[in-house]
C-alpha cells in the first residue's frame, strides 16, 4: 500500500501569525466548526482523462465529497451545503473572497485543484481561515489515480492536524469479521475496508470460523484466530500476498493474539488442560516465552505503546478483572476495582489510558481508565458490546454491538460502532454485512 503512493510534499506553510482558528478535541464538541469544502477544481482535459481511467465524471468533486464525509463523521466539523457557495472553485483556490464565505458562516475553507500530470493525479489544496482572511496551509502531492479516495483522506488528515494540533485518523483501514447467517450457525469471514466503509474486501471465504483479527504496526500483516481443520490456532496473514501461516507449534488452542508495538512478537493466550496463560512468540527467531503462570484464565493481552508493560484480563481474583504487568511477566498488579466484571483491556496509542469492556448488572459498557486503574469513565452502555480498538491518534474507539433477539430468538444483528473518547459522537459504522471484532490500522501515509 505504502509503495503505491508517491507523496510529494511540495510546500507546507503553516502561517502562525495570530489567533487563527483552533478546534478543541478534548471535550465533547456541541458546536462543530462550520467549514466549506469547495469542490476541487479540474481542467477539462484532466477531467476527460480521469473520467476514462476512473469512471468518475468529476474526480475533483468526488474527492471533496470524501473530505466532507470524513469531517462530518469526526463530529468536530460541520461541512456546509455546497449550493450556498458563491465563488467558483478555481477562483476560490487562487484567492478566496472572504466576505462571500463569511456570509454563509464558514469559519474555515478548503480549496484545491486536481490535474492529470503524466497519467498521475496531482493535487494541491489550501486551508483558509475565513475570519482572519489568511491562508493556514498549502500542500501539493502526486499519486496514482486509483488512490483518489486516499487523496481525500490525506487532505482530511492534514486539515484535522492543522486545526486540532493532533494527527488525524482518516487515511486508515479497519479489519473486522464479516458475519452472515443464523445466530446458531454464523458464517464468519475476515474483511477489510477503508475507515469510511469504502473499498470493502473479504479476505477469507467463510469455510472456517475466524475471530479477532488485529493489524501489525505497519498495517500490512494481520494476526487472528482461525478454526481451520477444527483446530483453533493463531494465524498470521500477509494482506498483500494473502499468505497465511499458523503461529508457533502449540499442542492446543491459541487465541487472543496481538502484535507487540515493534511488530516483532505476537502475544496471545495458550489454553491447555483447562488453564489459559499468556505467551509471546518472536516472529524472527520463533522463540516462545511463557509470560504468565497462574491456574486462572489469563487472556486478552495488550502491550503499552513503549512495549514495557502488558495489560491483560484474568479471573485470578475469582472474576474477570484487568491487570497490568511488566512485559517479562513480573510485577502483576490488578487495576480494575469497580463493581462488575472487566474484560478486553487495550492500551491507548498515546499510552495514558486503557480502554475496556465492563459487564455490570446485565449491561455492557465500553469505558476507559488510567493505566493505574484510576479515573474510570464509562462512554457507552448497551445490551451487548465489547472489544474496543483505538484510532491511531487515540481519540476514537471502534467496537461492536449485538442486539437482543426477540421471543422467537430472531432479530439478531452485530454491527460496528465508534465513539469519541469524550463520550460524544457515537456512530454506526457502515458495513455491507453484519460485523464484529474491529481493529483499526495505523495511519497509512505517515
Amino acid at each position, binding site marked *: 500500500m505504502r509503495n503505491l503512493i508517491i507523496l510529494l510534499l511540495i510546500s507546507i506553510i503553516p502561517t502562525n501569525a495570530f489567533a487563527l482558528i483552533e478546534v478543541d478535541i478534548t471535550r465533547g464538541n456541541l458546536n462543530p466548526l462550520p467549514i466549506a469544502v469547495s469542490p476541487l477544481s479540474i481542467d477539462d482535459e484532466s477531467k476527460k482523462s480521469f473520467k476514462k481511467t476512473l469512471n468518475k465524471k468529476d474526480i475533483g468533486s468526488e474527492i471533496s465529497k470524501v473530505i466532507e464525509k470524513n469531517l462530518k463523521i469526526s463530529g468536530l466539523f460541520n461541512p456546509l451545503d455546497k449550493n450556498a457557495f458563491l465563488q467558483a472553485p478555481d477562483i476560490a483556490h487562487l484567492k478566496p473572497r472572504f466576505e462571500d464565505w463569511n456570509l454563509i458562516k464558514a469559519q474555515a475553507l478548503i480549496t484545491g485543484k486536481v490535474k492529470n500530470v503524466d497519467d498521475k493525479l496531482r493535487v494541491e489544496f489550501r486551508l483558509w481561515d475565513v475570519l482572519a482572511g489568511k491562508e493556514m496551509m498549502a500542500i501539493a502531492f502526486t499519486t496514482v489515480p486509483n488512490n483518489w479516495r486516499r487523496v481525500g483522506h490525506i487532505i482530511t488528515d492534514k486539515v484535522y492536524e492543522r486545526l486540532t494540533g493532533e494527527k488525524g485518523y482518516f487515511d486508515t483501514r479497519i479489519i473486522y469479521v464479516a458475519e452472515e447467517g443464523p445466530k446458531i450457525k*454464523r458464517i464468519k469471514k475476515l474483511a477489510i475496508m477503508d475507515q469510511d466503509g469504502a473499498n470493502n474486501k473479504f479476505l477469507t471465504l467463510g469455510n472456517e470460523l475466524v475471530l479477532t483479527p488485529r493489524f501489525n504496526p505497519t498495517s500490512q500483516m494481520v494476526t487472528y484466530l482461525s478454526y481451520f481443520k*477444527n483446530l483453533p490456532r493463531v494465524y498470521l496473514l500477509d494482506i498483500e500476498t494473502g499468505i497465511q501461516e499458523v503461529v508457533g507449534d502449540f499442542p492446543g488452542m491459541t487465541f487472543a493474539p496481538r502484535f507487540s508495538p515493534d511488530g516483532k512478537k505476537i502475544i496471545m493466550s495458550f489454553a491447555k488442560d*483447562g488453564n489459559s496463560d499468556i505467551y509471546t512468540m518472536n516472529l524472527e527467531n520463533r522463540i516462545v516465552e511463557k509470560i504468565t503462570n497462574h491456574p486462572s484464565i489469563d487472556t486478552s493481552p495488550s502491550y503499552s505503546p513503549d512495549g514495557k508493560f502488558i495489560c491483560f484480563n484474568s479471573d485470578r481474583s475469582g472474576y474477570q478483572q484487568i491487570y497490568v504487568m511488566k512485559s517479562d511477566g513480573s510485577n502483576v498488579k490488578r487495576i480494575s476495582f469497580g463493581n462488575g466484571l472487566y474484560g478486553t483491556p487495550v492500551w491507548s496509542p498515546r499510552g495514558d489510558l486503557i480502554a475496556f469492556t465492563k459487564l455490570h448488572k446485565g449491561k455492557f459498557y465500553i469505558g476507559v481508565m488510567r493505566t493505574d486503574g484510576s479515573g474510570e469513565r464509562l462512554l457507552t452502555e448497551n445490551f*451487548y458490546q465489547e472489544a474496543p480498538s483505538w484510532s491511531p491518534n487515540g481519540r476514537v474507539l471502534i467496537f461492536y454491538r449485538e442486539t437482543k433477539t426477540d421471543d422467537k430468538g430472531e432479530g439478531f444483528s452485530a454491527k460496528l460502532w465508534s465513539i469519541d473518547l469524550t463520550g460524544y459522537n457515537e456512530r454506526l459504522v457502515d458495513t455491507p454485512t453484519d460485523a464484529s471484532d474491529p481493529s483499526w490500522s495505523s495511519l497509512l501515509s505517515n
Partner: protein
Amino acid sequence: MRLNKILKNTFIVLLACFVLSACATSKKSTGQMQGDVYTGTDTIEYLASGVPDRVFFATNESVLTTASRETLRKQAAWLRKNSDITVVLEGHADERGTREYNLALGERRANAAKDYLMTYGISSNRISVLSYGKERPVDSGSNPLAWSKNRRSVTVKAN
C-alpha cells in the same frame, strides 16, 4: 435438536435389534471426514440410549453439578464398553461474556468434563477438547433459559 430427538426415538426402537452394531448404524448421520479431521456432529446421544450427550454449567462457572457428574458417569460407562470410540468434548459459553474470555471458559468447562471422564477410567488419549466460546449457541434466544442451555460441554463422537 429436534432432529436429535427424532433420531434418538428411532434409535431406541432399533436398539433392541442392533445393540452390538450401534457404531455401524450411526454412520447414517451427517458426519464426514474432511482431510484427516472429523467434522461430524454425532454426539453420544445418538449412540447410547438414556445417556445425555451434554452437561450444563452455571454462569461463569466450570464446576460440575451433581446431575452433570451422573451424566458423565453414564458416558464413561458407555465409553468403557465401546473402547474403540474416541470423543471430542466441545466446550461452550453463553453470549453474556467477552469473546476471548469465553474461549478460555469453554476450554475450562470441556476440561472439567474430561477430567471427570478420566477419573472413571477413560484414557486421556481417547478424549480431545475443543472450545467454541460463544460462537456456537444451540439456542439463539437472549434470555436466561437460552443462556443456560448454551453453557455446556457436549461429548461428540470423533471417529
